[in-house]
């Protein structure tokens, strides 16, 4: 049942109970200001401080970093505990971890490719939220076709100088570092001329301009680099190895690493609880939505899908079960979850009836206008990190062996 998992070793079940109790006791009170729905929409300083404080608290309590060895500030690698913490955080409706880009994809990339010094320099600050990270991959001319990127990093004495233009850079306005893809060898082929950097943001020649989302919220930016300097030590891996490293980052970003899908899925099952609450509370035609056969059907459909996603994520613990197609589940995680979240957010909006016309700021807007807000923001997940279309190409080609689309 919720709270324990059948067959879970006793020691883990006890740990789960401890984490659960700690979260319940320490979860911060809802602030007076509006919180962002996800790490993509953190815009104000007060939002940021509140969220960073929470991550710091979880770290100090010893619950973050079960994917990082002790010598780099983690708890020592323990995938089972890592998963338990993720699940319990997701189920508790506690705030999210603000340094998510770093925790879930920049950090693991550094763990994989970083030198001893790099791991020592960055991993602890990531866990404690002392140092926030952003991701400088996309450019105005290079989105899905990432390898066409044009930002240049030119080798100079002691380091590199960067010139170019990045867009859609989430959290750049709070970030101390950026994982940066830049072209170091324009003469080389599209893929092999790219290098991967851990770029320090607080330097001259970096102009960060906030962009406004369709919901009116901020959270991402465009960045113009004008001959900005970074030291040699910023290079991750080898020069020209950037494309391969970036593919690793994207695997992490799409939740392909073990355990991540499972913790995200726990949050989705929780979301169904919210949906049923709303259905019982909201009225249409004088009757609760929960009595409307069409809406009942749609909610149950979402419930079954949430259950399926949770179970799919749990399958990662029995790799032999997936031996026919080992890459299928890792590569479909983000596709399925982001599209599901979009449907559920839309369903939430529709359940509101006339009140669905009310937006954030109206006193009578159900749930403070979060349903339409969540629906709009859900497109961040179906576009960011590789669009759903691109993911379908990847699955078709890499998992099913279909020929490349030209």
């Amino acid at each position, binding site marked *: 049942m919720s709270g324990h*998992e059948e067959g879970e070793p006793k020691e883990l079940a006890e740990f789960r109970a401890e984490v659960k109790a700690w979260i319940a006791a320490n979860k911060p009170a809802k602030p007076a200001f509006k919180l962002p729905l996800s790490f993509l929409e953190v815009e104000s300083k007060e939002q940021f401080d509140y969220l960073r404080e929470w991550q710091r608290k979880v770290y100090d309590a010893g619950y973050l970093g079960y994917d990082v060895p002790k010598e780099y500030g983690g708890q020592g690698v323990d995938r089972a505990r890592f998963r338990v913490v993720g699940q319990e955080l997701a189920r508790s409706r506690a705030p999210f971890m603000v340094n998510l880009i770093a925790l879930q994809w920049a950090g693991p990339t550094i763990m994989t490719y970083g030198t001893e010094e790099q791991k020592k320099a960055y991993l602890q600050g990531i866990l404690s939220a002392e140092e926030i990270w952003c991701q400088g991959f996309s450019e105005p001319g290079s989105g899905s076709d990432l390898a066409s990127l044009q930002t240049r990093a030119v080798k100079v004495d002691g380091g590199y100088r960067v010139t170019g233009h990045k867009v859609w850079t989430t959290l750049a306005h709070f970030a101390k570092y950026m994982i940066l893809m830049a072209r170091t060898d324009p003469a080389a082929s599209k893929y092999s001329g790219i290098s991967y950097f851990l770029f320090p943001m607080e330097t001259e020649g970096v102009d960060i301009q906030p962009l406004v989302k369709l919901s009116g919220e901020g959270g991402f930016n465009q960045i113009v680099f004008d001959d900005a300097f970074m030291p040699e030590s910023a290079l991750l891996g080898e020069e020209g190895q950037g494309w391969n490293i970036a593919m690793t980052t994207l695997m992490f970003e799409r939740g392909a690493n073990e355990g991540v899908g499972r913790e995200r899925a726990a949050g989705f099952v929780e979301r169904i609880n919210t949906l*049923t609450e709303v*259905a019982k509370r909201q009225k249409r035609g004088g009757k609760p939505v929960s009595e409307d056969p069409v809406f009942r059907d749609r909610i149950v459909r979402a419930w079954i899908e949430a259950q399926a996603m949770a179970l*799919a994520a749990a399958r990662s613990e*029995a790799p032999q079960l997936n031996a026919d197609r080992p890459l299928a589940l890792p590569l479909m995680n983000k596709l399925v979850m982001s599209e599901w979240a979009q449907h559920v957010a839309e369903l939430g909006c529709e359940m509101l009836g006339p009140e669905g016309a009310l937006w954030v700021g109206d006193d009578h807007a159900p749930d403070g206008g979060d349903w339409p807000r969540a629906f709009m923001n859900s497109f961040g997940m179906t576009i960011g990190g590789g669009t759903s279309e691109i993911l379908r190409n990847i699955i078709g080609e890499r998992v099913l062996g279909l020929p490349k*689309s030209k």
Partner: protein
Amino acid sequence: MTDVTQIIPQAPYAFGFTEDHELARKEARRYLNEHVTREHVRAQYEDPRGFDKELYRQTLELGWLGLSVPEQYGGAGLDALHLLLLWEELGRALYPSPLFASALAVEALLRGRHEAQRGQYLPEILSGNVIATFAYAEPGGAWGSDQVSCRAEPKEGSWVLSGTKVNVPFAASAGLLIAPAIDHKGELGLFLLELPAAGIELTPEVSVDPTRRSARVELDRVKVPHGARIQGDGRAIFQRVCSLGYALLAAEMVGAAEATMLMTRDYANDRQQFGRAIGSFQAVKHPIVNAMVQIELARSLVLGAASAMSSTEAIDRPEIAEHATRMAKAFAEEALSFTVQRGVQLHGGFGFTWDCDVQLYFKRMLWTRATLGDSTEHRQALAKVLFG
């Protein structure tokens, strides 16, 4: 507040999957690849019985019917995961046989309280000497434990049954029919009818899927001994039989969808148009990917159903297995329906022909959807769980 996480348990650790499961699955796949080819399936379309008796006997020797039947009754006593992994393979191969019919009957006997009944019938059924079936449906779209109109009246130490059963799987081949009927007190009983018998008239139906034969069964004052009633709560047993049925059919549908998706994938790789393989067109590629994604989710729900069926909690709370198996059947049906439709479409003119094997799976989809509740019906039942 209904907390959905309380309604069905979370997936247990690694689903309890072991080397043994892996070996059994491989062996079943190997056996089916060899013996249940598509030619074999097509041949059963023409067969008067609809299945190969000798092959059926062999598969029972492999223990396929008694897989999760306790050892004291001649079964292998394995968990539901073993069972559903096998049924996925059966669905892939479209194995034409009365396994489904007999599996329902076996479940009814097992859930009954009468030791002698089990001892009398189970070994015969598990060995294949007797094919058994379970009459879950009646005319007018009625099926399930709360829609039984058949009557059972006590008379001189016997029961006298009257009524009509439809869609009775493989009834024409069966030696034992389990018929639910309402008794004089308004209680639901499950009655063991040995076939043929006076007063029982069988009319073969024309099944949309010829690998799944069925018959309409008229019961006209059929007299059975008093001991021919399964002891225990008839309604509860019927419901458990249904839950098992949902799970078996869901697993089969996952296998069937997998086979169809792979067939379509292979065709998209081979078939050239405009100087390139059609699988390079996204309008072809993406639906195949969507099918695969649906199949993986459906398979996950089937694994979840297996866990729920074997979970210790489910012994006292059969609704745990019921919810999980309903979810699996509802979702797998939609996955299979999507996959066979895209399968026909993406094979083009060839897909529209009798020769293209996708049609075999298309028919299985229609039959399975119609059997033991379609996805809409299961979602309605689940909505009651959430909202009352």
